[in-house]
């Protein structure tokens, strides 16, 4: 293990040989890790990997069957032992705001937890002010918890967990289902509490792009550790390069590449391949060879992201499992499904009011047939209302639109027959089997018996459901359920699909398979998809994106358009590797660099003039005796784009409100 010695005062959490069993099911099987004081330690891995079980055991709220869990050198083997350490711990369970009281206001919730923990009045006032300020919740002190958005609830949950300044915070998937801006606020609190108060944190996450913020991490799958160490170390376990390029026809290119490479993704017009070769020349040569004679254009290479590595590790683990079938079979597009000309969706000045609140404000956009169109925005930005209007659940207050060639106002019935819909809850009947679910929707869409049989076979094949046909849906893993929900939405061969956060709660491999299906549907069958998501790394798969804020569309374009626009406005992203990142960050921020933030052991800053700023950074840090190991420019991520846009708009709105 990595710990220096058993009696080291540095060790906050020590888990060894940990085993947790639920009846017959082995949830965690022999887990070891050690968390040192002042560390932000990450647990990552797919659903059901055993993360929550370990965290609950460390928080002292769940017993375990084998091995040991020690916190502050106290062996957690009894209720009494757990009671001893509980006052030094803060625990945030999984789920949005589950530890809070919906009928109490923001301030009342905080005060309640503070009183429970006997926090002195003066300390409470000071901490509350600070925490509310970082999370930008201070304007909502008297708002009832139940009226907050999901992201705000989660930030409040974190405040209530940290109000007694625990030495160890245990946070179970604190950012799942939370919008990117709130997620950044969340990390800001954690970083400050760790730097200023010396807090230790054990955090689990489903977002791989967040995992680079951890000092060290363990990557779990099926109750075992697949990899552990610093993010850089884990990344080095699967060496390789990511090559991005364009090649036409895209589908054929992808098919050829898949014979040679395990990770091939189509992102909009580009292809994204993870190569085992580490040398750029060898990697590119390999790809050209695999593609021969197809052309290769706009090629560039990057170091792999942690997500590429994680997926590679998972694929290695589950080698030989059922994969999505290589080719879509004949789709048997039903004869009754009318083809239509013109855009798949055309929204003109759509407005929707709820009482005096304008949820959607003059939203207009076009979506071509066969296009994957992403609608991004924080919780409550109006994305879901737009989808509900276009699908006919909610009538618009104003504006007009055409969906699948039919007028929204007059032909609601025709629209419903031509579209497919899949929502974040995966609207399936959990007590019915896979086949029964498909049959139900086949009947609802009025398919004849023979047609229904053909479609059922096609869906089972397309979504990789064979072997699961007669299982109850409630017993299936999330990823399989999600593909079944997509299948049910496709049962009547719709031309337009609406997908409302279809990937929340699904692990990285499941998400990749899902996107593979969507892009095949788009390219092979010409199905247009309108999709909302919180995973901005996924939004890269979309052909075009629209960003919503406060009911309006504030930016629209291809992913690379959006990035270039923001880069022009705020500058380029520089990644700085330095030996004492915490201390260095404070210096960098003091020197006036905007957007300075810590990502694991690296610092990110935005720069309009990279060469001049690099010199200045070196000078600033040299003055306090720190040396920069490397500075390298990075492409802005869509998350950077999103956060930068939304923050600017929030500042503007705030100014208007308080002149």
């Amino acid at each position, binding site marked *: 293990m990595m710990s220096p010695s058993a009696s080291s005062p540095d060790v906050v959490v020590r888990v060894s040989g940990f085993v947790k069993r639920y009846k017959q099911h082995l949830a965690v099987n022999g887990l070891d890790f050690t968390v040192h004081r002042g560390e932000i330690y990450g647990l990552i891995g797919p659903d059901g990997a055993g993360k929550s079980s370990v965290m609950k055991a460390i928080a002292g709220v769940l017993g375990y069957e084998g091995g040991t869990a020690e916190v502050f050198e106290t062996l957690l083997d009894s209720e009494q032992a757990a009671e001893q350490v509980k006052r030094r711990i803060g625990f945030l369970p999984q789920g949005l705001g589950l530890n809070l009281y919906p009928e109490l206001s923001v301030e009342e919730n905080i005060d309640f937890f503070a009183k429970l923990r006997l926090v002195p009045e003066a300390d409470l006032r000071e901490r509350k002010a600070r925490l509310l300020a970082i999370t930008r919740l201070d304007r909502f002190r008297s708002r009832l918890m139940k009226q907050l958005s999901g992201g705000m609830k989660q930030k409040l949950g974190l405040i209530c967990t940290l109000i007694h300044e625990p030495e160890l915070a245990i946070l179970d998937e604190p950012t799942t289902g939370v919008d990117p801006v709130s997620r950044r606020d969340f990390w800001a609190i954690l970083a400050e509490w760790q730097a200023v108060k010396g807090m230790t944190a054990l955090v689990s996450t489903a977002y791989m792009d967040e995992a680079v913020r951890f000092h060290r991490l363990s990557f779990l799958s099926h109750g075992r550790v697949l990899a552990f160490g610093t993010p850089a170390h884990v990344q080095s376990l699967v060496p390789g390069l990511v090559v991005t390029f364009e090649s036409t026809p895209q589908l054929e290119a992808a098919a050829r590449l898949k014979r040679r490479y395990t990770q091939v993704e189509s992102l909009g017009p580009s292809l994204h391949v993870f190569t085992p070769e580490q040398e750029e020349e060898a990697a590119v040569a390999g790809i050209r060879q695999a593609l021969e004679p197809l052309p290769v254009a706009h090629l560039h290479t990057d170091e792999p992201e942690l997500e590429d590595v994680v997926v590679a590790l998972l694929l290695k683990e589950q080698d030989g499992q059922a994969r999505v079938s290589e080719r879509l079979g004949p789709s048997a597009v039903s004869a009754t499904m009318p083809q239509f000309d013109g855009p798949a969706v055309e929204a003109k000045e759509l407005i929707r009011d709820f009482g005096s609140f304008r949820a959607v404000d003059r939203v207009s956009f076009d979506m071509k047939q066969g296009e994957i169109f992403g609608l991004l925005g924080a919780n409550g930005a109006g994305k879901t209302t737009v989808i509900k209007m276009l*699908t*006919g*659940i*909610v*009538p618009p207050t104003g504006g007009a639109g055409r969906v699948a060639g039919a007028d929204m106002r007059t032909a609601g*019935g025709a629209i*419903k*027959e031509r*579209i497919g*819909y899949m*929502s*974040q*809850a995966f*609207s*399936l*009947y*959990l*007590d*019915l089997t896979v086949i*029964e679910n498909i*049959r*139900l*929707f086949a*009947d*609802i*869409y*009025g398919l004849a018996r023979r047609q229904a049989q053909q479609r059922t076979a096609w869906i089972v094949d397309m979504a990789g459901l064979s072997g699961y046909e007669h299982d*109850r849906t409630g017993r299936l893993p999330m990823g399989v359920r999600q593909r079944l929900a997509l299948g*049910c939405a496709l049962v009547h061969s719709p031309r337009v699909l*609406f997908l409302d956060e279809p990937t929340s709660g699904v692990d990285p491999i499941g998400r990749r398979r899902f996107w593979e299906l969507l892009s095949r549907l788009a390219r092979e069958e010409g199905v247009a998809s309108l999709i909302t998501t919180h995973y901005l790394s996924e939004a890269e798969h979309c052909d075009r994106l629209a960003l919503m804020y406060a009911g309006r569309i504030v930016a629209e374009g291809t992913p690379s358009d959006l990035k270039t626009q923001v880069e022009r406005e705020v500058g380029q992203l520089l990644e700085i590797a330095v030996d004492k990142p915490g201390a260095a960050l404070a210096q960098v921020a003091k020197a006036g660099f905007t957007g300075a933030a810590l990502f694991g052991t690296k610092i990110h800053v935005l720069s309009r003039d990279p060469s001049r700023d690099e010199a200045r950074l070196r000078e600033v840090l040299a003055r306090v005796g720190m040396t920069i190991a490397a500075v390298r420019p990075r492409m802005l991520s869509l998350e950077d784009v999103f956060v930068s846009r939304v923050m600017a708009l929030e500042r503007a709105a705030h100014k208007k409100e308080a002149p």
Partner: protein
Amino acid sequence: MTAGQRAATWGQRLAALTWKELLQLSRDVPLLLFLIYSFSLSVLVSGAGITMQLTNAELLVQDEDQSPSSRELIHRFQPPYFALAGAISDPRQGLRQLDQGRAMLVLDVPPRFHEALMSGERTAVQLLVDTTNAPQGLSAAAYTVRIAASFGTETALASAGLSGAKASMPLVSSAHRVWFNPTQDERWFQSISHLLRMITLFAVLLPAAALVREKERGTVEQLLVSPLSPFQIMFSKVLAMSGVILLATALALYGVLHPLFHVPMKGSAALFFLLTGLHVFTTAGFGLVAATLAKNQAQVAMMALFAVGPMLLLSGITSPFESMPQWVQAIMTFSPLRYYIDITYGVMLKGAGLDLLWKPVGAMLLLGGTLFGSGMWRFRRQFQ
């Protein structure tokens, strides 16, 4: 698409939804067990166990006369109505027994009772009754009054030298015939009443719970974006649950009421089941309205109990409808159970047909239509 094809598709959709409800119910084992229990054992126990008639009222006797007349009078307090609990000699003893709840009645026959009767004087006996349980106490008192009165009359006639039968005196006797339940078997009334209670309870709860579950899970949104009308979504639930409830009713009727209590079916069984279906549809309307207001299953169960509670208590199966205050009767005009009671007793025990029952049937149809309509209106509105 022709009108015929459209109708066929409409039917296919309704059938698919109804079948889905049945499948889901069949997978809910605890609920199924509860349903079966409610329509079998629970009906059996209520029929056999609940009785409102006066039975085994404990009677203490203080016979201070010890004469043929006093013995004759005491002898008239007979089982099953009364049970002799013993004789006492001290009035305070009787009071104590009443206080402790060990006796319900204390009969005190005064000294010189026989002598007074023989000499044609007026005399009286004292009866103390515990009416904590008002209906039982009152009916015990009423029986006692009748026993004392008939004993008095007979003694008076005898002393006048006449035997009761040949009396040419102006006496009114009531020659009553017991109709519809000739053996006066109370189990009939109790078991039927309980069956009606169960039908009503499940008619409100099952469809409401099914609808709210879809809201909770989010599946209802999937249905709303499909080519389905709110009518199809809601009616399929009522259809499926009516089928299940009718099946359960048949179980109670032919598994318990008929073989064990010998409750007859004087009228048409088909008519009874048809009208039971109508009652379930009407009552389900309450549940569906509640389901559009509630957010989760716990809430809808609570709301349903609010609606069902008064309905069960005040519609006339728990206490006689006619004896309730006018305003309660007026409110109960909106209780489908009130009409269904008339219908059930009419068809089962009196052999009535639609010619006699058209009024309650019409009222139920009107009520059911209104409720279902407002449920549909609310259903559309709640998502907008």
